[in-house]
């Protein structure tokens, strides 16, 4: 069974590269451009893995994560935090809010694929 992945990323090009590599790895990929859209999409498609950029318009990644963890319909989604800041306090915040994985931009494609498959297998 293929892993359902939702990408929340406002950078069009990054989203596109993610979609390409994950589809190649056999995932089912959806894409949202901002935080609110991501939540809406998550309720519809209930993905296995949510790749969440921190710097999102309208609702940032951490806000989305908080909502996901507090919503009983969404709480089972595995969340991978993607950030370009890569500071340690971002990692701490992510851990505290219940993120399952943390990847810093620029990432290596294989790293992302491995993480997503691992998280997808768990759920």
């Amino acid at each position, binding site marked *: 069974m293929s892993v359902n992945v939702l990408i929340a990323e406002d950078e069009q090009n990054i989203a596109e*590269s993610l979609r390409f590599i994950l589809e190649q790895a056999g995932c089912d990929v959806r894409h949202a451009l901002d935080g609110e859209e991501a939540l809406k999409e998550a309720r519809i498609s209930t993905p296995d893995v949510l790749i969440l950029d921190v710097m999102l318009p*309208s609702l940032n990644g951490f806000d989305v994560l908080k909502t996901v963890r507090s919503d009983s319909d969404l709480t089972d989604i595995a969340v991978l935090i993607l950030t370009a800041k890569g500071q340690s306090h971002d990692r701490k915040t992510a851990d505290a809010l219940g993120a399952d994985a943390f990847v810093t931009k620029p990432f290596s494609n294989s790293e992302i694929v491995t993480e997503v498959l691992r998280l997808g297998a768990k759920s």
Partner: protein
Amino acid sequence: MSSLNVVILAALGYAVVLFLVAFISDRSTRSGWLSSPLVYTLSISVYCTSWTFYGAVGSAARNGLEFATIYIGPTLVFLGFYSVLRKLLRIRRENNITSIADFISSRYGKSDLIAATVTIIAVFGAAPYIALQLKAITTSFQVIGGSSDTVGSAPITALWVAAGLALFTIIFGTRSIDANERHYGVVAAIAVEAIVKLVALIGVGLVAVYHVADGPQDIFNRIAETMPPPEEGFGVRWIGLILLSGTAVLCLPRQFQVTVVENDNERHLFTAAWLFPLYLFLMSLFILPIAAVGATTLPPGSNPDMFVLTMPLAAGRDDIALLAFLGGFSSATSMVIVSCIALSTMISNHIVMPLTLRRTAGLSVDGDVRGLLLKSRRIAICGILFVGFLYLEFGPQSAGLASIGLVAFLGVAQVLPALLGALFWPRANRRGAMLGLSVGFAIWTYTLLLPGLLADAKWWQQVAQVGPFGIEALRPDALFGLTSLDPLMHAFFWSISANVFFFVLGSLSRDLNPLEQLQSTLFVDAFRSGSEGGQRLVGRAASADTLFDLAQRVMGANQAYGIFRNYAQAHNQKAEFPVPDDAFINHLERRMASSVGAASARAMISRVAGGERISLDELVEIADETARLMEYSTRIEQKSREIEETASKLKSANERLVQIDAQKDEFLSQVSHELRTPMTSIRSFSEILAQNNRIDDDKSRYFMDIIHDESVRLTRLLDEILDIGAVERGDDFPVTLIDPMVALKRAVDACRGLAASANVTIIEEYTDQPTTTLANQDRLTQVFINIISNAIKYNDAVNPKIEIDTSVAAGTFHTSVSDNGSGISEHDATLIFDKFSRGSKPTNEKGAGLGLAISRTIARKFGGDVVLSPKSKTGAQFIITLPITSELHNQSNMEDALYTKPLTESI
């Protein structure tokens, strides 16, 4: 009353007791109770003479509360003991001062002239005062002995009393000549007398309150009945009397003797500070009741000065009357004894000794100085008492006890300016002291002493009425037409004013000579310079033998040997006699000063050792030491204040640095974020291309385009980051006087291509007013381009239009760039000028978000600004303002603005 014999017997018996007390105390020198603070305090109460004992009641009967002023002054002086009295004690100890005359003279360059002047003033002031005591004793004898009508016996009584007092004083007051040896016998006798007079006065008071009157309530009624109306009596005279009595308790020779010279422990003063005022308070407590009862029960015309005796007599309490008599006797005798000791010391040291030295000028000191001193003191005691007796017999008869005492008070008060100057005014010198003393003394004599003495003389009455030689302005009771004051206050005002005036004037008229300078430092800085402080500065030379010869003549062989021997031992010298170096000679001079006074001691030493050489440099150093210490501490204070200031500046600078550092971190983190974003795409797509060879050409071309676009974006980003750094530092754009319209038109032209491709219409409306501003042409163009291109790029209207207007108002050139797009949300409006902010609308535009931040920074560098107009309803309106400058003159201000802008604002 019982017979006169009983009274005489009681008096003699009492005198014998006093002799015994004195005798025993003199034997047991330095035994416990004699050197207790209580005995010290009681000896100070020699202040309360028969004037207090008899005269205060008389004064109260005549003038109500006025008597209290005489005791309030001393109360205040002792309350302030720490500043004046303690310093007097310290200086006396350090300098072996023998009397108030010695004190003043020692301070003013060891001048024998000053010492003699003060002595003369003291003697003149004391004569009527001693006469007053004799008068009180004889009058009380007459009253209690019931022989007031036998006038003839009065002089005989007075003479007997005077002789007895002389004998006592000579026996116990002139045993030694050293000021460091206390008169224990005398002090003990006076302490006993102090208790007797207090007990006696309280005894009489109790009789008045409970025996004659019906308790306190009745007493108050009688007081209210007899006292002058309370509204009266609190005027100039009230103030003057408090000041005068405060002065007297410091300057009266006998007070100086018991308080300062006889003190052998500074700490006793701490007890006397409150115990002596308490003694005065208790002495005063029954004065008014006795006066009131006397005035209401005794026949009219009774002498109020004798109420203390006549009241208990009239009440039939002979025992209390006898006690009162002994109290009065005690008051009078203790005053006379101490006064005689103090005055005789002054006369022998400051008049007899200098005259002897002058007579033997040029030669060494001959003969037995010690013998001469003792003899002259004994003669002086007899002389003083005899003068007092003469004054009593031939002086004015009419005055009350209190008024005679006040004349004496004002006499010795002439010493006060020189005394206070000695303690607190470093510039005070001999000339000032001499002038002040003599002028004050002369005026006192003319305005107060002579009018009292010569009241009955016809020629004086003539002078008093029309002035000397008919000069009205010089009338003794209305000097220069001053008639509003009573005679005492009149004399007080003129003598003290002139005294102070001439003291200050004289002191300022010349500099201090070295010896004066040295003494001034030793006195004014008594608590700092220490005993040997200035002594090392005085240089003299003489052989030890010569010095010993001199010393043993002055102090006797035993004492002189002791001094030499002790000094040698104390300084670890093996020889019998110490090496006569400067330090020893100065030590010896001070020891001799305790016998003959500072002036004479110096004169004698100079005879054998030559005049002193005082090292001026070192002297100045000593004098300056205090000043230096104070300056030093001020400097330290200042330093520590500076350090505190620096610390707080550093703290705020540090806070700013921390803030800047945080901003820098934030900036770097943002830069990193902005750089990572394009790099993420580049890395990811290049990995895809590298790892998948099965991707079709279209796709791989598409991916490579993305990689290219992102690389361009990365480059632009780096350029912008470098640019904002340059703009913020302000380097590489010199400002000149330019026309902003030129820059604007260039910018519009540059944007026309962009507008055309985006189908945006540009509407221009420019003012034709020529303007200039101080700016950099290229940078200003950059600002305009940035704003206009933003307006084009972000315009999402169907028929996109932008409008560019310029106007001039209030010295400012306004450029407005507005569009008809959907505008900027309130939330974004607060953010768009921040770095790396791009607004929340997703766009295809890939700027780094630094453009507006850079534009605003540049505009602000030129003294203008870029703002988003809050007023615009549709679309966004940016306004660029620039100050209009027509001349280059305020360029420097501009530059200041450029370089002084805090860093915080610019990063």
